[in-house]
């Protein structure tokens, strides 16, 4: 095989306006045969219109059942550099804060033991090491743990908990997302590293309903900050927005999904009992409006991607829970959910599919929650739960 790297099809991907992973890979191809063969195999895939990866393969490190995703090339003779190309998930920091020293250490480890390719941060939240051979898995694991890192989850286990930056940088945060993430990562080490669930279980923490981790769509359990009292208003700042020529009527009042905002002169009034906490007004006028003071979280269950069964959004299970260390109420709820799912769920059945199969009423009874109207009212256009009795009660009021 010639050493020259010809990738006419991949080169096309470098022509657009956006940064290209092809450019990144090429910049590393000079020092890594793995990356060179990765590009070659990908070029061939593009030419032949088919993938050349074999799926699966059981690889891991001693003591853990998760954290490594095994990948093998289907053409190892043609592309020896990627004959093994396993992914390691490294548990990311809460809020994604790293020192440059830590990053340099990680990169040195990965240059020594793997392809040198990183993915920060993927949909799982993890810091992803892309591509190494089976024999390098234990040495990589040893090297990262020596520096205080650990692997994340994969397979049918608790996936690496992940959160938004929360109170570290964001005034919207209604709870300490990073503290909860740290807490559950440590408390559930066994569940994280040693798969024993029916299928994966993802927990994502967002500090407010802006939901920067997309918990409502991408996590089996979304923990989303929320407030119970009123949106805080600074009327003087509101008046400044009006004076500055900002079209409050068009961009705020009319965009409120429940039409619960009214403006009289330079004064804003919010009917908080009808606010669904969509964050729009607060995002639009951050100087005048802010999240309330009586804060906690709403907990959603059941979101997942379209694989196996169709896609699901999370549904509200707990409309409000205080969320402060030591988080015992949360641990307690999580324990009951896992126990019930474990007992009655099927192999490879996500919690959302499980709830659809047995029905929400059976599920909430099983985990010991009382049915309340918020379970169906938020999100109000929830596509798949219709809880007749409680709708009626609401309407009669």
């Amino acid at each position, binding site marked *: 095989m010639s050493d020259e790297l010809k990738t006419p099809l991949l080169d096309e991907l470098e022509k657009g306006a956006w940064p290209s992973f092809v450019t990144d890979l090429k910049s590393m191809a000079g020092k890594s045969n793995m990356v060179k063969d990765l590009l070659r195999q990908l070029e061939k895939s593009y030419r032949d219109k088919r993938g050349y990866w074999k799926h*699966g393969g*059981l690889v*891991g490190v001693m*003591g*853990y059942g998760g954290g490594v995703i095994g990948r093998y090339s289907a053409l190892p003779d043609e592309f020896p550099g990627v004959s093994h190309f396993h992914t390691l998930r490294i548990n990311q920091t809460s809020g994604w804060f790293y020192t440059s020293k830590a990053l340099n250490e990680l990169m040195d480890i990965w240059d020594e033991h793997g392809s040198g390719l990183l993915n920060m941060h993927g949909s799982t939240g993890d810091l992803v090491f892309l591509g190494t051979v089976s024999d390098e898995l234990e040495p990589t694991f040893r090297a990262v743990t020596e520096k205080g890192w650990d692997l994340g989850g994969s397979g049918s286990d608790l996936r690496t908990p992940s959160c938004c930056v929360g109170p570290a940088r964001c005034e919207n945060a209604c709870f300490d997302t990073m503290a909860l993430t740290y807490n559950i990562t440590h408390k559930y080490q066994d569940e994280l590293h*040693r798969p*024993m669930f029916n299928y994966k279980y993802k927990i994502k923490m967002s500090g407010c309903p802006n939901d920067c981790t997309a918990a409502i769509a991408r996590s089996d359990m979304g923990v989303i900050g929320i407030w119970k009292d009123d949106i805080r208003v600074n009327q003087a700042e509101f008046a400044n927005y009006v004076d500055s020529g900002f079209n409050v009527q068009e961009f705020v009042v009319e965009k409120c999904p429940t039409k619960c905002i009214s403006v009289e002169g330079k004064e804003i009034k919010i009917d908080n009992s009808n606010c669904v906490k969509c964050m729009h007004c607060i995002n639009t006028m951050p100087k005048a409006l802010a999240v309330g003071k009586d804060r906690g979280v709403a907990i959603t269950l059941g979101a997942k991607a379209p694989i196996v069964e169709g896609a699901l959004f999370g549904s509200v299970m707990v409309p409000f829970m205080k969320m402060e260390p030591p988080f015992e109420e949360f641990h307690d709820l999580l324990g009951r959910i896992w126990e019930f799912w474990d007992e009655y769920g099927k192999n490879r059945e996500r919690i959302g599919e499980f709830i659809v199969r047995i029905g929400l009423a059976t599920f909430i009874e099983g985990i010991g929650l009382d049915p309340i109207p918020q379970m169906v009212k938020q999100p109000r256009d929830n596509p798949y739960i219709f809880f007749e009795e409680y709708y009626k009660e609401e309407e009669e009021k």
Partner: protein
Amino acid sequence: MSFELNGKVYETDDDGYLVNLDDWNEEVAGYIAQQEGVDMTEAHWEVVNFLRDYYQEYKIAPMIKILIKEMKKMFGPEKGSNAYLYQLYPAGPALQACKIAGLPKPTGCV
């Protein structure tokens, strides 16, 4: 692939799992365990024997959660945990214990 033990040749797949389930006996199990670096104690045999019994009855390896539950029932709570199983079989109960028990390779995705 294959290995030879006491003059008999045993066929395995690429990862060292027995191809013919009937080839299994305690000697063969001992040999595979040795290759895996697992020192078979009575506690190890409890798991392997359970896996074989289960497989004979249901023609499928148990899910981990079932293995844990049944271990708990049969041998008490301290043996019915994932941490305990990984202590015995550090590469994981599915991978290592099934291999030693002569069961087919568990299939799994990501």
